[in-house]
């Protein structure tokens, strides 16, 4: 099973200021964003995720982060089947958003 995301980068603000947006990428596509004290910008990243935009995001933004390179996201590898259901995107176009819920065999 693939991991959720392989890289993360602070794209707006900074963790030192305790106000930031961090974007997560998987194989060069943005897959998630997390904000801390900056929730009003999340809608923008929601759309970026829906459109499967490129990661790391390149943008000229207000409160632009310092431009550090993405670092490994360090999610634990999901190499073994678990009892948790896993959602897998299928289909050809990421905008079709068809999902299948797969339950591993006991």
């Amino acid at each position, binding site marked *: 099973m693939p991991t959720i995301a392989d890289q993360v980068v602070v794209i707006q603000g900074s963790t030192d200021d305790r106000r930031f947006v961090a974007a997560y990428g998987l194989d060069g596509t943005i897959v998630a964003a997390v904000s801390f004290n900056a929730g*009003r*910008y999340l*809608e923008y990243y929601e759309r970026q995720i829906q459109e499967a935009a490129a990661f790391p995001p390149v943008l000229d*933004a207000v409160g632009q982060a310092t431009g550090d390179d993405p670092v490994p996201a360090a999610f634990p590898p999901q190499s073994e089947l678990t009892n948790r259901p896993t959602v897998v995107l299928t289909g050809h176009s990421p905008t079709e958003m068809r999902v299948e819920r797969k339950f591993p065999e006991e």
Partner: protein
Amino acid sequence: MTETDAPTLMDQITDEAARANPWPLFEQLRETPVARQPDGTYVVSGYAEIVALLHDPRVSSDPTKRADGGMTGGGIEPAFINTDPPEHDTLRRETTSFFGPPHRPDMVAKLEPWMHETVNRLIDAFADREQIDVVDDFAYPFPVSAICRILGVPPEDEPKFHDWSGALIVALGLRMHPEGHQAAFQAALKANQEMTDYLGALAEAHAKDPGDDILSGLATDKGPDAMHMESIKSTARLLLIAGHETTVNLISNGALTLLRHPEHIERVRNEPEYVIRLVEELLRFEPPVQMIPNRTALEDIAVGETTIPAGAPITLVHAAGNRDPHRFADPATFDPDRQDGIEGQHLGLGGGVHYCFGAPLARLEVQIALRTLFRRLDKPRLVQDPPPYRPSPILRGPVHLPIAMDGVHPA
């Protein structure tokens, strides 16, 4: 616009003649939700497009980011409405710390008894009159007293702000077509300077003898976000103007809307919580801030079928988005019971990081003002419809709203 060009749709919208009823023009405007103007400004009128840009980090509120250099502020420090994160966040957080939670959770709520008292005192004075002007006699004095009290301006100085604020708003309304209005811009610069000097002197007085108002808080703070004097002055100036020119119009627009739709008056009288929904619908249906002309694209932004180029000025027309039939069913109907708008999804208080700073204060003021006014007036009715309007296409509301009534009920 030159003399040979036909007036554009935006020319018609900004023309004073459209002020009483801009809605048919906004409907035409929405046919092109993102429309490039001859001067290179992009006017955005669709609900979805406005919301997308309000949350887009590539949209700036800093006027110096414009490709054409933008408007100058007369050498006065920008207030947080015209800044971007991270400066914006620091200035706004510092101001909030003296206005609301977590540091002052009861700043607005504790004013409620004073608000009832003030509103009732204004209405008591109507007892012997057959006709009043809702704007001059009610909608103006109440929020102005409130903002002065919260900010720390002594009541005897309130009249000074009437003229200063008025001059600034006239200039704001003209900035889309500044040609030939040099006198108005000079008057605005002078008012700006006088108001800023006054607020500086007041901040220094409060620093020596502080109260529990915002200006005293800003002037005495020694914390990491403490502002220097120039920022304190521009912040106080912003709060005063915003407190003068928005809530006044929301109360006046509300009284006008209720008198045009009198079936709602009985419910305001009888159902204590009805006015909460009514004010939200009012913010959708007749928002006092019709458009936000101060945004700039930092890079090329694709929105809908259009790409707004980097450096282009953007005007967000909230009033048009509020009546977008793709978002609100039957948008031209005033319906406080609507299920698709009462969750605060209207654009009447803006959105994104610049969402209205004074929203909790404005909501409480207008709820108390409208409920008390319509509970106490006996058979109120419009004398003139439409009433005369203020000239500004940005901050829209009647300049006078004469109404007649048979009397005043006791408080």
